[in-house]
């Protein structure tokens, strides 16, 4: 054992981190239960995490050293083992433990698309289809995927080129990817694992196109896994992350499937070719809409929380330069510039946790209505899922990168855990809908609602504020006034309305001056995106304020959450000053007050920074970071982990082959 391990051994907490925990102004455990939604949830979550982390099959210890092939194989092994584990532990898909399982595995497991496959059958399939396919899928007698995106088409679904032509004589659909850009590209689990997939294709009956519909297609043999006739499939090659997932390509050449394989809860092709629709066509996209919301917590918000935990703990341990001559080097967390990087990310992580709760409530309500064939809330659900998915994924991606860069050189080491968090989260800006396009969809909804609200018609609850256009100026007189939520919520509301109304007016002007509607829309898209973001930003701030008001005023929780809420709100104004100054709603002098209040808050929250990340309650194994562990023994761990690198365990073939001749000046023999 290395001599440095003595007296510095793992287990004892680095004094630099221990001291941070002694001064917490609130109860960390209490805040954890608030985040979990109650003590019972905390208990269940910890039990699941412990059971998973104790099991060596699920270990992520060597993850950073593995090749793509090794990662894929490990993910398949884990997915298979998980079935056994669930049985052993008595966990069920509909049980309270379920949502914590994938979180504990950090998504590092295969067959995630298998779940999407099942979900789309549950939502879009008829009762008979559900009865036929779901038991097979549950027992893993088949492995499913979800094939929507094509090489040439992504977010714009109407543009998909795969075709499904109904043949009345054989009662079959004939599927084709007629050209290279029509090839399915990207679907997870499809490159190597899947036996079946839900294929989205343009439906043709008697020469008429009915638009995009979902079909269940078998692609690999259930016996020996070889490709079925007419199928070409494989892995799409290395990506920035997701080495463990076999994202795949799929070509279909005259592949025939029975009529019953079209998912037909809402649309059906009858034996004679008659096309019947039940309900809105938009329902086909509902899987995607719910997916967007369900991914926010695990794929978008948790990575930001993890990155904050790593960066803030490390910043309390790392010392660099001197703040005061004669003293020891200061913790980098004491530098204002470091606080200004990290603490707004921390506040945002909390803000997003609460907005995620809000969205889940909205969706639970909407889902029930849709099951009862009431589709009236679909536009609002669609707009909310699009806008918040875009805003949160964009912000969290940037936030994780800020955390990465705030850790200096060591952040760049894979062993910090930050590069993997970053390369993974940044895919969320694109999958399940590219962010810019999603924001424009939200904007379209807002423009419609704005017109309705202006005409005095009823609008969905989340946008009723659009009817309340009030002129005026911000009434704040000093920097403390900006710690009053009424003041800043009003400022956000004002800005959101201003951006939307000025864009709506411009759109109107263009159309009246003779510009075609679609052309006018394209000319306003930059502003429309801005307006959609401002709307989501406003709702997030407002929801944070309302959440804080409802929190128990015990154990210091409400107070610290109020500080974070203030910081989140003021940071948003500080970083988008132009938007708030624009029509003079906030004056130049008031902006200086905001800046002063904002900078004061950094110093206040600094004291609780480490307890605030401790409250996220990540285990060391789930962080998988040499910089962010609970005990703060950063350097020791970094050194030990580096020893495990394969580059240090095997003699490099490069030495004998190239370096030796080079060093001995025998270059000509190479």
């Amino acid at each position: 054992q290395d001599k440095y391990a003595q007296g510095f051994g793992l287990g004892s907490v680095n004094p630099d981190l221990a001291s941070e925990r002694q001064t917490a102004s609130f109860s960390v455990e209490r805040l954890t239960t608030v985040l979990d939604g109650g003590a019972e949830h905390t208990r269940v979550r910890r039990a699941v995490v412990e059971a998973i982390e104790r099991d060596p099959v699920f270990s992520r210890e060597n993850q950073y050293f593995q090749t793509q092939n090794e990662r894929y194989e490990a993910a398949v092994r884990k997915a298979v083992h998980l079935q056994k584990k669930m049985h052993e532990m008595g966990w069920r898909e509909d049980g309270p433990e379920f949502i914590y399982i994938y979180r504990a595995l950090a998504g590092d497991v295969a067959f995630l698309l298998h779940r999407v496959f099942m979900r789309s059958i549950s939502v879009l399939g008829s009762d008979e289809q559900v009865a036929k396919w779901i038991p097979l899928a549950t027992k893993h007698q088949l492995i499913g995927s979800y094939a929507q995106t094509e090489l040439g088409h992504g977010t714009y679904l109407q543009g998909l080129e795969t075709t499904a032509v109904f043949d009345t004589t054989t009662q079959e659909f004939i599927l084709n990817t007629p050209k290279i850009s029509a090839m399915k590209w990207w679907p997870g689990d499809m490159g190597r694992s899947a036996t079946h997939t839900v294929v989205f294709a343009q439906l043709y009956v008697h020469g008429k196109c009915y638009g995009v519909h979902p079909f269940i297609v078998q692609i690999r043999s259930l016996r020996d896994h070889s490709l079925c006739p007419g199928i070409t499939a494989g892995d799409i090659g290395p990506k920035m992350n997701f080495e463990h997932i076999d994202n795949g390509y799929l070509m279909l050449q005259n592949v025939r499937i029975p009529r019953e394989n079209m998912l037909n809860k809402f649309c059906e092709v009858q034996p004679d070719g008659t096309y019947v629709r039940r309900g809105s066509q938009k329902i086909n996209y509902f899987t995607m809409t719910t997916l967007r919301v369900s991914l926010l917590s695990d794929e978008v918000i948790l990575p930001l929380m993890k990155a904050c935990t790593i960066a803030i703990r490390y910043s309390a341990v790392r010392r660099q330069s001197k703040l005061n001559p004669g003293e020891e080097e200061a913790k980098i967390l004491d530098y204002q510039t470091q606080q200004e990087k990290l603490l707004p990310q921390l506040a945002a992580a909390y803000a997003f946790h609460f907005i995620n709760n809000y969205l889940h409530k909205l969706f639970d309500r909407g889902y029930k209505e849709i099951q009862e064939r009431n589709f009236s809330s679909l536009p609002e659900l669609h707009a909310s899922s699009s806008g918040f998915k875009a805003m949160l994924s964009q912000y969290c991606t940037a936030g994780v990168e800020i955390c990465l860069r705030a850790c200096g050189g060591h952040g760049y080491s894979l062993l910090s855990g930050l590069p993997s968090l970053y390369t993974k989260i940044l895919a969320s800006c694109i999958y399940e809908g590219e962010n810019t396009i999603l924001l424009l969809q939200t904007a379209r909804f807002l423009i419609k609602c704005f017109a309705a609200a202006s005409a005095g018609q009823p609008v969905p609850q989340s946008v009723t504020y659009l009817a309340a256009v009030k002129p005026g100026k911000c009434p704040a007189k000093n920097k403390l006034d900006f710690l009053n939520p009424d003041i800043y919520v009003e400022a956000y509301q004002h800005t959101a309305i201003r951006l939307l109304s000025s864009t709506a007016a411009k759109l109107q002007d263009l159309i009246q001056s003779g510009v075609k509607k679609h052309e006018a829309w394209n000319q306003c898209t930059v502003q429309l995106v801005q307006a959609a973001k401002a709307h989501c930003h406003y709702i997030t701030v407002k929801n944070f304020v309302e959440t804080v008001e409802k929190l128990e005023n015990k154990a210091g929780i409400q107070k610290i959450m109020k500080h974070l809420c203030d910081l989140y709100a003021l940071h948003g104004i500080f970083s988008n000053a132009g938007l708030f100054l624009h029509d003079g709603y906030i004056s130049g002098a008031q902006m200086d007050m905001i800046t002063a209040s904002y900078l004061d808050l950094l110093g206040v929250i600094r004291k609780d920074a480490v307890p605030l990340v401790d409250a996220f309650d990540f285990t060391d194994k789930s962080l998988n970071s040499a910089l962010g562990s609970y005990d703060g023994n950063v350097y020791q761990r970094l050194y030990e982990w580096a020893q495990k690198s394969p580059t240090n365990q095997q003699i490099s073939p490069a030495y004998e082959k190239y370096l030796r001749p080079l060093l001995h000046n025998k270059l000509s023999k190479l």
Partner: protein
Amino acid sequence: ALVINDPDFQHEDLNFLSRSQRYEQAIRKSSLMVMKLREYGIADPEEIYWFKSFVHRGRPEPLDLHLGMFLPTLLTQATPEQQDRFFMPAWNLEIIGTYAQTEMGHGTHLRGLETTATYDPATQEFILNSPTVTSIKWWPGGLGKTSNHAIVLAQLYTQGQCKGLHAFIVPIRQLGTHEPLPGITVGDIGPKFGYDEMDNGYLKMDNFRIPRENMLMKYAQVEPDGTYVKPLSDKLTYGTMVFIRSLIVGDSARSLSRACTIAIRYSAVRHQSELKPGEPEPQILDYQTQQYKLFPLLATAYAFHFVGAYIKDTYRRISGDINEGDLSELPELHALTAGLKAFTSWTANAGIEECRMACGGHGYSRCSGIPDIYVTFTPSCTYEGENTVMMLQTARFLVKSYNQVAAGQRVSGMVSYLNDLSRQRIQPQHVAARTVSVRINDPVSLVEAYKARAARLVEAAAKNLQAELNHRKSKEDAWNRTSVDLVRASEVHCHYVIVKLFTAKLSEISNAAVRAVMTELCLLYTLYGISKNAGDFMQAGILTDAQITQVNQRVKELLAIIRPNAVALVDSFDFHDTHLGSVLGRYDGNVYENMFEWAKKSPLNKTEVHESFHKHLKPMQAKL
């Protein structure tokens, strides 16, 4: 073409290789490169640079530190006797060296380094030690597996006193066997975000002895009895830093240009959705939102290109002065390059990501080439001086200049705008009431607007600092409490410098058509910067609400004006396909066919049925 067509330099697509394989390929190519440089008789540094950049296609390689730091340091800091002993063996690669400065616990703040070199007059040796875990040398390139020597920076102790940081030549591996020497622990620091082909290493020394003559003694010296002789000036070390930071500015321009080339070409090939009902899907480059993402970045790439060239020229000019002993311009250049290094690397870093995201899902595939550009470029925000610290260095210079002006002196160079502030102070009116009549289509007038913004924010930061100083006794504490403002001040100063240099460049372009398109890009860069930072301009009373609305409108008009030239503007960067390394950014635009070809080569596709089917899937299906 000498390199691109050479079969010896061909190899499998790096994206499909493991880290060990990539390291091996890089070593193989470096060895060959050295041999061919000798064979062709190439010795000019500029030519070597180009040759190298084609062999490694702009990627890092294990000999970078040997060629870029070890040899130059020997040339500048070694005595003639040391050069005799080390330079030729190093030139012939019998000695491969690296430069070991950064430690696990210490980076940008050099005075905090903990490695010690204690002089023992009895044996005339230095005893080198890494006394703590945090003092282990960590990160130096080529240290992990390749080098057999290192220049080590350590705190020098002689006659019981610490004399600060000095450089020592330390052998670390046995010549012949390449095994670490007794007392040396050395290895690779493990996988990183990028730099797969580089063996960044660690180095721990336990009572490791080297002869007295191994301290680099051209400037400071330790005599046999342990007497320490001080160097003449310590400002000289600035020169190397300025030089390396100026290279990073150029690298920011190049990396962003590459990402723009890929994203813009691909956006011309990709069709999506509909603009006009019933018409075929348009090129995504026709969407305003796509133009708004990419064209300001294109303009930025050009702006940074001119800034990089400016710094290089200025550095060359000033180096001449330095050799003649004139150091007067060095502080400003040092301060300016620190800030510009930070400004350009931050902006390019974010811009590369924006380009990647503008390519949608395919940008995320390694075949796009942008992930690779990003991971290779992003550490430049940290190395050679962490960016925030760099910004604060520039701020220190700005505050110093401001205080000089306040004390009645005049300042020169890029900060001369501060001179105007003192004149305005005579008039009693509030700063915000100052009226600058800005013409938004005139680049020269816009430079004035940026200048006014810089003056306002430098003044605000300096005043806030003064207010903090009046409140508390510790200067350092006051500085820390103002540092967010100070970083902002540096940023706007750099932004001003860039706008100014870009605008000044326009008049030097003789070809009218080129000048016209460059003027459009310059306007876009400048107006986009105003639009994004509208708060600053409004708050300082430089522009009114109505003018900001005009600026926003004008930006969108410029997007449409630049659109027809967009592809030509990236073609002008003249990146060869092999250098670009991107399926999406191919010159011929045959994207989809080639993506399919590329994917077929993926390691997961080596067999039709993956072995994990037999190992895991099949048994599971049998059991359930």
